[in-house]
């Protein structure tokens, strides 16, 4: 403790004097110095032989280390932390198995463009290439799943490589960066000098769009009668939700969001249409298909969003603004591709709209708004009419109740599967960075560790983790980590006794052959209690809210198991490879006595 405050004093002393004095340090200490330069105060890690010198120097620095139970979780925690805060998440692990355990977490961050820095040990440089104990070529392994990676073999390389790693992780299109540091580089002595200036925030920012480009977009908007914005993760990553809202308020253009774009425009905004794509609402996908202009802002036309490419938004002219030039014209060919930071682009568009005095008005699009509203009402009537009335506890009830109980204000972290889609449909988000979910990779096991990371980064407010009975079992040991850290998190396990999303596909596309999808589980309540959590079980609708309130009242970590209807399906659904208007809707008569009979038979397999 004393050492920590001394280190703090040293740092502030160093902060006053310019230029900074150089002094000698082991590479291991340089690691921590650079983390302090970057104002890192928490990291997620797991020690081992090749990273021991670095761990040994930890107590000298004011950085909190969260000991995880599996390195994959460390990467997910850093990922959740980064999404909640907009800062770079940091991971520390050993070489070989520690490092390879990170790979799924790194890939998840890559696919969702989340800035994390992973530092791993590596065998001594003279042993590289010899298949030494716990030697794995992690730079080679992670080459296609990192934004960049480095191997430091000398102590003097540590600082420049780590600084560059941070810079890359938070610049341009963000992503994971790996830095391997050999044992001798950690132990070697080198000169260290704190940099004179604080690090530049973004070194890969594209230049602002030209007036020609913004004018071309506005001209297309002026000519359009049914324009639609597709808002993606870029809106959130670029902190552009305020600018998006301004643009929408000024022009009246409705907004459909991708899964990761949810929260970019408040769900209660009259122009917010919710999520589009495979499990998007019917009226939202209809709007995409009827639009005559698509403004794709900070999204990448994932196949879960577009469905069949050849029919996607086929009536629309298309504008695509993205920070990554390689995304332009990749999946969907567009008339106007523009490489730009979406925040900067929206500010410029807003400025030009403000200067154009009445050229754009929201009521210009009244007919389009009415068409969408009519479709919405029709879809809602269908949903209400086909809502099952058997009184069974359903996952949708749980997520709707969670939204009501938390007033839509919790940080919602999900795992992957049906519950994730129900969460996206039912938990209406008012703010950015409040939904943390694995989009591009769809990584089961992400929820709990990402929730822990989000909690570490955002101490205020509620954090709810929603996981399926399958995915929760993948990283459940992290409950201990939450207890050890004394974290106030609430876990809702949606237990349907199945790998539900796969079962749904088997039901729809494999003639109900439920191969390897019924999954048994431990008693989740006992399991949580064994880890030191307060735990509750809910088996009927009327227990939902009381259990949630009890969990919320608890200052420490809690788990609520919801035993839900087993063979429920997420609707609407666009079958893979189909056009997004070819949705499967909830059949009006499918939830009758016949169905619940089948469910009760299967319940025995739980």
């Amino acid at each position, binding site marked *: 403790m004393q050492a920590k405050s001394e280190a703090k004093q040293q740092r502030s002393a160093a902060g006053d004097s310019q230029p900074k004095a150089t002094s000698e340090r082991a590479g291991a200490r340089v690691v921590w110095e650079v983390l302090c330069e970057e104002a890192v105060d928490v990291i997620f890690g797991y020690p081992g032989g090749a990273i021991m010198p670095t761990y040994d120097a930890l107590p000298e620095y004011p950085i909190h280390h969260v000991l995880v139970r599996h390195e994959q979780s460390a990467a997910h925690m850093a990922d959740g932390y980064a999404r909640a805060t907009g800062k770079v998440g940091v991971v520390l692990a050993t070489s070989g198995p520690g490092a390879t355990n990170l790979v799924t977490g790194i890939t998840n961050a890559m696919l969702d463009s989340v800035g994390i820095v992973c530092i791993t040990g590596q065998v001594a440089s003279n042993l590289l290439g010899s298949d030494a104990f716990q030697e794995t070529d992690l*730079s*080679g392994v992670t*080459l*296609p799943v990192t*934004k*960049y990676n480095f191997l430091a073999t000398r102590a003097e390389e540590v600082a420049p490589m780590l600084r560059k790693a941070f810079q*890359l992780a938070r610049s341009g299109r963000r992503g994971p960066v790996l830095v391997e540091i050999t044992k001798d580089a950690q132990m070697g002595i080198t000169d260290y000098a704190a940099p004179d200036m604080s690090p530049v925030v973004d*070194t*890969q920012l*594209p*230049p*602002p*769009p*030209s007036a*020609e*480009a913004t004018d*071309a977009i506005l001209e297309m908007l002026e000519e359009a009668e049914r324009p639609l914005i597709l808002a993606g993760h870029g809106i959130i990553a670029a902190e552009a939700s305020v600018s998006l809202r301004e643009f929408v308020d000024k022009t009246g253009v409705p907004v459909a969001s991708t899964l990761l774009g949810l929260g970019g425009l408040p769900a209660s905004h009259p122009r917010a249409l919710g999520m589009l794509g495979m499990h998007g609402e019917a009226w939202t996908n209809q709007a995409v298909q009827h639009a005559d202009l698509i403004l794709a802002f900070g999204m990448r036309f994932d196949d879960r969003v577009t469905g069949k490419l050849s029919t996607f938004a086929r009536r629309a002219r298309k504008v695509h603004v993205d920070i*990554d*030039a*390689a995304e*332009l*014209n*990749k999946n969907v*060919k567009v*008339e*106007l*591709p*523009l*490489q*730009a930071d979406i925040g900067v682009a929206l500010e410029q568009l807003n400025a030009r709209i403000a200067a154009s005095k009445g050229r754009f008005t929201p009521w210009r699009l009244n007919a389009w708004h009415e068409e969408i509203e009519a479709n919405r009402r029709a879809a809602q009537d269908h949903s209400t009419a086909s809502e099952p009335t058997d009184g069974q506890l359903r996952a949708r009830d749980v997520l709707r109740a969670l939204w009501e109980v938390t007033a839509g204000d919790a940080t919602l972290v999900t795992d992957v599967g049906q519950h994730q889609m129900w969460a996206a449909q039912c938990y209406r988000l008012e703010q950015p960075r409040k939904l943390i979910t694995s989009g591009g990779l769809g990584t089961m096991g992400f929820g709990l560790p990402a929730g822990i990371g989000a909690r570490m980064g955002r101490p205020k407010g509620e954090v709810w983790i929603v996981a399926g009975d399958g995915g929760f079992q993948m990283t459940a040991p992290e409950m201990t980590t939450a207890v050890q850290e004394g974290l106030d998190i609430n876990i809702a396990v949606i237990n349907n006794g199945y790998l539900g999303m796969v079962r749904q596909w088997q039901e729809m596309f494999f003639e109900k052959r439920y191969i390897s999808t019924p999954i048994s589980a431990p008693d989740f309540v006992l399991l949580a209690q064994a880890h030191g959590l307060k735990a509750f079980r809910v088996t009927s609708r009327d227990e939902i809210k009381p259990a949630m309130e009890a969990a919320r009242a608890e200052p420490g970590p809690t788990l609520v198991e919801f035993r839900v209807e087993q063979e429920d399906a997420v609707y609407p659904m666009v079958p893979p490879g189909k056009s997004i208007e070819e949705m499967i809707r909830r059949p009006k008569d499918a939830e009758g006595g016949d169905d619940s009979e089948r469910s009760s038979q299967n319940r025995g397999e739980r």
Partner: protein
Amino acid sequence: MTQQTARIEFNGAGEAAETRHRTFVATLEDSPGVLNRVSSLVRRRKFNIVSLSVGRTHIHGESRMTLVVDCDADTARQLEAHLRKLICVLDVQDISHEPCLLRDLALVRLRVGARERMEVFQLLEVFQARVIDVQPTSMIIEVTGDPTRIEGLAEVLRPYGIEEMVQCGAVAITTGTSGAAATPIR
């Protein structure tokens, strides 16, 4: 760091759809693993490589790559954008439409005895190729030039019996006073 300027690019029909050889020159960091990154990108994104060659330049710490791929214009834009994204790539130019010189080098071991030697020498003169080693029953021929010239030479030598042939892949340079890729942007 290189940056692409914001630009508007409207897709024309016609040329865009045509699949043909396109040539890129790139300035790379001269450090370990760089070639691995480029080839990994090309493999993963399924670009169709015709040739790839990398070598050092007059500038310390930089190497230069010439990449010839078979693709349409949209794919070429994709490849260029992906190359640009690689941190170790300092600059990329698509010089398919620039006036430029493309040179490849081939060494050919030809099975040829004393009787046919003179005949072969005459052929080689047409292609401005040279003989760099002669053995009683074979010779080694060196030829540099546009890749099509090398193909042409291989065709006429084939009847004599080519025992072995190596080629290093095209390298390219733009002509005119200011080379397209002469000034790497930092």
